[in-house]
């Protein structure tokens, strides 16, 4: 009999090939060469140290968001509101910087407070979705989506209202923060080593929580069977809220890093879709934290690599999203087929 574990790997490779095949067909249908597109994306992502640094800039928030989502997924929750939790983290971080803008405190301390505030901001916003779910009966998917829209409204309000740029408010965002409020970057590159370390620590922590603690075990029990966990005496709704809190905190951390290490101001699209992309990464790795780093890196590389497409081949850069999407889709479909196949073999 075919080894069950290895059949999983084989099926995953089949999924990867299928998605590459479909995307190649899409490329051929618009008269572009798939090989040329893929090689441009490869060169554009890992072709030089500068490109690689760009990939890491995108990898940091994606990894943090994925880490957070692994917690909510473990608790059986679809935290689609993660996008808004990133935004609130960024808003809280900018807010702290604005308060301390003329302060004489050491900038490092202010940056630290700002990043902490970002975590709190994201966690509070996630708690709102959690409260809507546990006490309002609103499914977290719909509450979360609604809160995402509200967070966008809030960002726009701040950029065009109270935090507007001196002179003329515009979609380019608020006034840039002073240079002293930035996380130090490697010389000549945009990547901040501190941010990278924070992200790695984040995922390691999540791995440890889920695989090495009693808390993680209970969380997974709640996710696997809510009713059974409740009957076993686990305070289920508290655990749901804890998971929202942790995920929101990590998402808010990602938002705060976008402010301190990347944009240095609040912009309308501060979350850059990392929340939704993180959901895809979590699904693709089948909620196993051990795979988060390589897959998040791969997705970040696709994002950065696709920037080359409009420049070199006059193709839209949304191709990376199509590739990521079809990949996750085929992994789900192929896994479904494998399960059906296994069931047939067993009976």
């Amino acid at each position, binding site marked *: 009999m075919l080894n069950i574990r290895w059949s999983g790997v084989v099926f995953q490779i089949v999924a990867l090939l299928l998605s590459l095949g479909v995307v190649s067909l899409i490329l051929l249908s618009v008269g572009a060469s798939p090989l040329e597109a893929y090689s441009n994306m490869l060169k554009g992502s890992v072709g030089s140290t500068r490109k690689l640094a760009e990939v890491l800039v995108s990898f940091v928030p994606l990894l943090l968001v994925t880490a957070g989502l692994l917690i909510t997924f473990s608790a059986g929750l679809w935290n689609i509101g993660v996008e808004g939790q990133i935004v609130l983290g960024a808003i809280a971080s900018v807010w702290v910087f604005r308060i301390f803008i003329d302060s004489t405190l050491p900038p490092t301390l202010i940056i630290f407070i700002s990043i902490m505030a970002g975590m709190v901001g994201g966690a509070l916003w996630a708690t709102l979705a959690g409260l809507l779910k546990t006490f*309002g009966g609103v499914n977290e998917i719909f509450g979360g989506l609604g809160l995402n829209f509200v967070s966008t409204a809030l960002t726009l*309000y701040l950029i065009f209202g109270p935090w507007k740029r001196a002179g003329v408010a515009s979609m380019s965002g608020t006034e840039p923060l002073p240079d002293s409020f930035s996380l130090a970057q490697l010389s000549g590159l945009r990547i901040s080593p501190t941010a990278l370390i924070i992200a790695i620590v984040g995922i390691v922590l999540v791995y440890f929580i889920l695989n090495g603690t009693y808390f993680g075990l209970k969380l997974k029990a709640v996710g696997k069977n809510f009713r059974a966990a409740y009957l076993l005496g686990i305070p289920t709704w508290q655990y749901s809220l804890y998971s929202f809190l942790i995920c929101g905190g990590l998402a808010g951390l990602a938002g705060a890093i976008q402010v301190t290490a990347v944009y240095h101001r609040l912009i309308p699209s501060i979350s850059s879709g990392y929340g939704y992309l993180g959901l895809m990464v979590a699904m693709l790795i089948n909620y196993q934290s051990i795979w988060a780093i390589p897959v998040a890196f791969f997705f970040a590389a696709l994002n950065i690599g696709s920037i080359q497409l409009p420049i070199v081949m006059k193709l839209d850069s*949304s191709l990376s999203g199509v590739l990521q999407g079809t990949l996750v889709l085929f992994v789900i479909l192929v896994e479904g087929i494998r399960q059906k196949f296994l069931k047939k073999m067993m009976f």
Partner: protein
Amino acid sequence: MTQETLLIGLASVLTAATPIVFAVLGETLSERAGVINLSMNGTILLSAMGGFAVAYNTNSLILGFLAGMLIGALVALIVAFAGITLAQSQVAVGFVLALTCRDLSYFLGSPYMSLPGPRLSSLPIPFLSDIPILGTLFFRQDAITYLSFIAILLTWLWIYRTRPGLMLQGIGEKPAAAFIRGANVNLLRYIYTIVGGALIGLAGPTFSLGVRAGWMGTISGLDGFGWIALAITIFGGWNPARGAFGAYLFALLQWLSLVLQPVLTQIPSQVLQVAPFPLMILTLLLVNIGNAEWVERTLAAMPESTRKFFTKLLRAMRASPPAALGVPFERD
């Protein structure tokens, strides 16, 4: 504001709501059968782009609308195959499709950016359009808006007044019972998901060939309507008439935010445009809160008369999803 401009404004609200009405009707049918089609946001964008591209190349509006419906049906077929046949999470598949179809529409649509293309013109119905007030409101619309009025009525009649409609409610609420009564649950679920998907797919061209003619890629402002339609489906309590009402209410709020802009100058216009969204959450909360356990407990502790009042109030707003929504059905 004169009465005439007010009426024309309200008539434009009905037109603007049309795509959302189609999407809500389609999602309602699909969810009534027990299948969540979460792909809506991407489906609408892809069918808007595809519908526009087909209408542009063939110069036929009808082919454009049909193309949109075909795209919606195909995406729904993927949801159905993964969710019903393979028994995978419908939420996961739908969400992935929502993102993938959105990006695919931007990728394939870039050659059609900002091109002037065919668009629907209004089609006043002779005689009826001359009725004071009602004529301006309802009978000077375009063909697709008339179709949406008919679709609301037909969907409502189908669900609540026909035998197959009763079976539809059955396969969403108690599939095992429906199966014993002779229903081919999974086949019916396929059919309703695909028909619902075609209706959702009709929403796209209604945007790109009507309400917001043309294809503008990321700046067309269509991204998000699918999620709104999903929320409105719940607001409507899986009842097509109430869902359509929700769509009109939403369009009315968006229109009001435009009209009130000159009055409320201290609020940035970008904020007013998104104002309906927080209101949407609030309504979702009102619709759902009756389902929460602590509410029931609190009600039970209330004195008789107050309890009666609150129970009535909550029951009027409350809506529960079909019991088997998202749950795959297996014969044994």
